């Protein structure tokens, strides 16, 4: 029936629905966003005016820097902490503990992001929260700039460490057992074997897991938005929250997409790393 089509044409035909979705939902909005950054435009009013680099100049003269700082602090914290916890857990589970434990640890990662946020809002609650109950204090963890960022990082860490564990455990399980045995015979202790056998073997998958988590955190929205909404006083306002608020609360599409453009630029650098690692 399709004998007239070449294999290549048939393959492209199969990809039409997927490619159409990519064009409509990802490619076009992305290009359109990058262009809109050069215009003064409202979310709700028609019409727009070309303003050149004005939006970018506004941002670089002010808002961009605190947002960049917050994003970097959040991203580093919420990537390093789950990485360390996930690695420790993967090593422990790989040391011959029962397999069902892995499944138990997946719960924090599996439950919906808003549920994670609700749960930690309740734990951090100033009046009745269990954290204050344990400490005998009445600290408003999410209400003070100094603690809000830490609280948001703890929450995101809790939701992400299981994924790290799964990735790193997969890496550990591919490690040939003989390497450890040989090192053991040669008199290497546990720490020495970890450094000289495990770490080099895990470098590739650990690097990719870390980088992917970094990229995801760099654009994370849900937890921060529900926990603090970017506050207090902008202390947890990251790129995702700032772009969202500028567009949907300030109705200022020009500045929102200009900020998004700067954000994309930083992401592209990260993505270049990721794709290079993929092909390495």
């Amino acid at each position, binding site marked *: *029936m*399709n004998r007239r089509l070449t294999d*290549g044409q048939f393959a492209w035909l*199969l*990809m039409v629905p*997927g490619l159409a*979705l*990519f064009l*409509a*939902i*990802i490619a076009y909005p*992305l290009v*359109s966003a990058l262009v*809109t950054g050069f215009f003064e435009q409202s*979310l709700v009013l028609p019409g727009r005016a070309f303003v050149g680099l004005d939006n970018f100049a506004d941002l670089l003269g002010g808002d961009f820097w605190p947002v960049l700082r917050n994003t970097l602090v959040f991203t580093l914290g919420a990537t390093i902490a789950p990485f360390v*916890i996930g690695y420790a*857990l993967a*090593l*422990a*589970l790989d*040391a*011959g503990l029962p397999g069902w434990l892995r499944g138990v*640890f997946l719960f*924090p990662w*599996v*439950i*919906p*992001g*808003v549920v994670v946020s*609700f*749960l930690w*809002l*309740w734990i951090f609650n100033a009046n*009745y*929260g*269990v954290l204050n*109950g344990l400490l005998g204090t009445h600290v408003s963890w999410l209400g003070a700039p100094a603690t809000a960022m830490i609280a948001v990082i703890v929450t995101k860490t*809790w939701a992400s*460490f*299981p*994924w790290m564990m*799964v*990735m790193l455990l*997969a890496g550990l399980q*591919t490690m*040939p*057992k003989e390497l450890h045995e040989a090192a053991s015979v040669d008199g290497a202790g546990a720490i020495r074997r970890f450094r000289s056998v495990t770490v080099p073997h895990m470098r590739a998958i650990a690097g990719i897991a870390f980088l*992917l988590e970094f990229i995801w955190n760099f*654009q994370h929205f*849900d937890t921060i*938005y*529900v926990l603090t909404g970017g506050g207090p006083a902008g202390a947890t306002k990251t*790129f*995702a929250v700032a772009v*969202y608020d500028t*567009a949907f609360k300030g109705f200022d*599409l020009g500045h929102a997409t200009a900020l*998004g453009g700067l*954000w994309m630029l930083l992401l592209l650098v990260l993505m270049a790393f990721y794709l290079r690692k*993929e092909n390495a």
Partner: protein
Amino acid sequence: MTATLSRSVPITRAPRGRRPRSRAAAWAAVAVIGLFGLAPIYWLVVTAFTPDERAFTFPPSLVPTELTFDHFTKLADNEKLFGYLVNSVVVSVVTAFLSVVVSAYMAYAFSKFRYRGRKSLMHLVLASQLFPQALLLVTLYAVFSASGLLGGYTSLILSFTTFTLPLCVWMLKGIFDTVPSTLMEAAAIDGASRWRTLHRIALPLAAPGLVAAGLFAFVRAWNDFIFALTLTDPDRQTLPPGLVHTYLGEFQTAWPDLMAASFVVSLPVIAAFMFLQRYLVGGLTAGAVKG
């Protein structure tokens, strides 16, 4: 992905940790991380069954002294929440179906044919999951607004389907890669068209993978917050933004009610993942290993 599957199978697995000392250290690490990982879950469940007057006392009692099902019966009587539930089910189920169809065709094209542009397209699909969704959302809002799709289910379903493609396509490509080409050549010799070969041979063989991809897409749609919050009218919103509107922003949040709702919302996702466990490692690492 073939590489991934074979790699995630332990190669030569002699019993590990025979030394009791390393086993003890491992249990100690699991205990500490377990406290951090599971105590909050315990607290969610306990709060969901605690009567209001006991939940709003300070300091809270770590062990429940009184249990109640009131919060769950209250949920069942709440018509607004039921509306959000219906929206969640509709959006997630349709997304799952659509995502399986679109990603299966695409994955098959990536797996079984060789043509110009294949490799770059595969990388593009993979990279597309890394674009910031908050930014896409800003202009998608305008796109859906202009096309009259804003406010309904369609905008959500189309968006979620697209965002599930990278994972689903890569997972299914891995599965199609394991279907022997000789089977398809045999079908071609018997006179089957390429469509027939795809639908009668490749898809049935990939059925477990199709189910897994569908569940992943279901979970993605079920859990989303930012798109559901923004692209639909309040009466078309799914549970995540629905719960935020219902419970947060009041003077005093009804925490036990909210924990009960959180418990219920998490159940379908937990069930899906119990089924998905064995696909999990392969699917997760698919994006991380070159194809």
